[in-house]
């Protein structure tokens, strides 16, 4: 009787515990920001800027609120919910890009001070990297912060100094307050996430890549070559450890310990039960108890989910860059050749736009995504 009922009871227990429930996942809600990020980037790459804005605005509303006391975050720290059960906000480099993109859209709309707010907030997302030298080290964000300040009649020299101090990829030119066409450009595919470790509890990054490493801009008789200012792979991989990594490491230890205990208990129980010479002997009882405890420990171990959250904003570039041009008023056509280190043109993009005399800055966004 025992042999038939016990597995059934355990199966019920296991299926209920592990299976979760019909509405327990909440995929749509917890991935909402992720979808907004991806769609916004796709709209930007397709030059459908008006459609990207509300998506970024909604995502940034989520980023702007503090997560203290949020139920999904609390559960993500628990043993029996994976990290990906929390509402997605992204790693700092992803959050940086959300603010960066919204900033360039504000500038496009003639709101340079709100653009600057976004660039500052983007830099702020990176301010708590583990090592000081990697904190707030996006050269482009400081550069743009100072550029807007200079454009608004202020002194952007501090920000320019900071930008130059952390610039790794390109030398940053002095601000041209009279430049009227501001070109933001993206290149390549950004870093991707994967989980390492025995229980996939360690968040790791695969480097992104980019065939083009510079862009050659031709407009109104001008020809300007510009390189990227920041590298998202570098940013993603220099953050250091997260607090959540310690939580996941603890979960992994718990999972391993309960699994090992389960194995030991099952084996010991089986030996005792098999070795008992009489039915209903004490050895039988202890053996059965150990078997049950072992199976329960295995269930607990199986239910423990230390895996790292590898959801990612997967249409980000690897490089971001910016250049400012002086272009005469009127209808203009800009040709952007994305070129590789050998000087070959990898991709060409053309943009038609109008420069209004004495009007606000014309902001262009170019991507090498087809």
């Amino acid at each position, binding site marked *: *009787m025992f042999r038939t009922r016990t597995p059934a009871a355990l199966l*019920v227990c296991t299926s209920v515990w592990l299976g979760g429930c019909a*509405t327990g996942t909440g995929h749509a809600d917890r991935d909402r920001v992720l979808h907004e990020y991806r769609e916004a980037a796709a709209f930007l790459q397709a030059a459908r800027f008006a459609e990207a804005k509300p998506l970024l605005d909604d995502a940034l509303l989520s980023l702007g609120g*503090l997560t203290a006391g949020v139920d999904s975050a609390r559960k993500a720290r628990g043993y029996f*919910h994976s990290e990906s059960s*929390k509402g997605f906000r992204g790693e700092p480099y992803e959050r940086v890009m959300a603010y960066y993109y919204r900033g360039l859209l504000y500038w496009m709309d003639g709101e340079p001070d709100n653009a600057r707010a976004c660039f500052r907030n983007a830099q702020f997302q990176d*301010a708590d990297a583990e090592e000081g030298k990697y904190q707030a080290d996006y050269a482009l964000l400081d550069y743009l912060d100072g550029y807007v300040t200079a454009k608004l009649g202020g002194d952007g020299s501090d920000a320019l100094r900071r930008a130059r101090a952390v610039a790794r990829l390109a030398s940053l030119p002095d601000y041209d307050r009279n430049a009227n066409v501001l070109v933001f450009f993206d290149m390549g595919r950004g870093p991707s996430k994967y989980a390492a470790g025995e229980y996939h509890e360690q968040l790791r990054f695969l480097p992104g890549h980019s065939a083009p490493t510079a862009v050659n801009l031709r407009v109104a008789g001008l020809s300007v070559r510009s390189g990227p200012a920041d590298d998202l792979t570098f940013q993603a991989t220099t953050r250091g450890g997260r607090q959540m990594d310690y939580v996941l490491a603890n979960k992994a230890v718990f999972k391993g310990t309960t699994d090992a205990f389960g194995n030991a208990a099952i084996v010991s129980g089986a030996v005792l039960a098999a070795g008992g010479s009489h039915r209903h002997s004490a050895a039988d009882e202890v053996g059965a108890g150990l078997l049950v405890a072992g199976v329960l420990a295995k269930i607990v171990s199986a239910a423990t989910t230390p895996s790292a959250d590898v959801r990612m904003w997967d249409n980000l570039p690897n490089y971001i860059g910016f250049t400012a041009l002086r272009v005469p008023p009127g209808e203009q056509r800009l040709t952007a050749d994305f070129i590789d280190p050998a000087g070959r043109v990898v991709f060409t993009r053309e943009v038609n736009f109008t420069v209004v005399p004495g009007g606000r800055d014309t902001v262009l966004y170019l991507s090498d995504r087809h």
Partner: protein
Amino acid sequence: MYQRSVIAPIVALAAAAVLSAGCASSGVKNPSGTGVTVLNADEQGFVAGTGVESQDIVSVTDKMARSILARPQIQNAQGTPRVVLLPLENNTRFAVNKDLLLTRMRARLNSQTQGKVLFLARDRMAALEKEQQLKQSGQLTSNGDPNVVAFQGADFFLTGSLDGSSTRNARGVSDYILYTFRLIDARTSGIVWEDMAEIKKQGLEDAAYR
């Protein structure tokens, strides 16, 4: 005896597991939703960050409106001072709808001064000029001579700025925002009134996001 002693704990454990696993809606906070909660605009809601929020806008603009009304230039003005709003400058890390602050101040002043101050709708000049052109061309009727410019000049400009200082480290996020407003004499460029409000907020993200 044997069956009772072993199976009973197992059943109890299974029941405990079922209970601990929760009901069908575990994992969903407020599965049936939250009813509409009406809050005063000066209250902090349950959705909060360290940025500019409605309660800040209300408290800051109320304070500024009171401060302006107490000025002798307004209290003892001969005639009605004409004021034009100039956009605020945002120097914080938060993108904000800057018009919201000035619009609320204007509405507050208009409702409390009962005509003591006249705000000029410079933000609607394009529409106003078009209207005047249509009157001048005879396409629209006019109560006065449409060729006489009646757009009024400003006696004062009301403007201001938001400045901020932010800190972020392992112990949390802290944001200080300084709101300053100025009334500038349009004739002399003198600042006839200035006041400020400051708000500091801090918080710590859940460890799942750190």
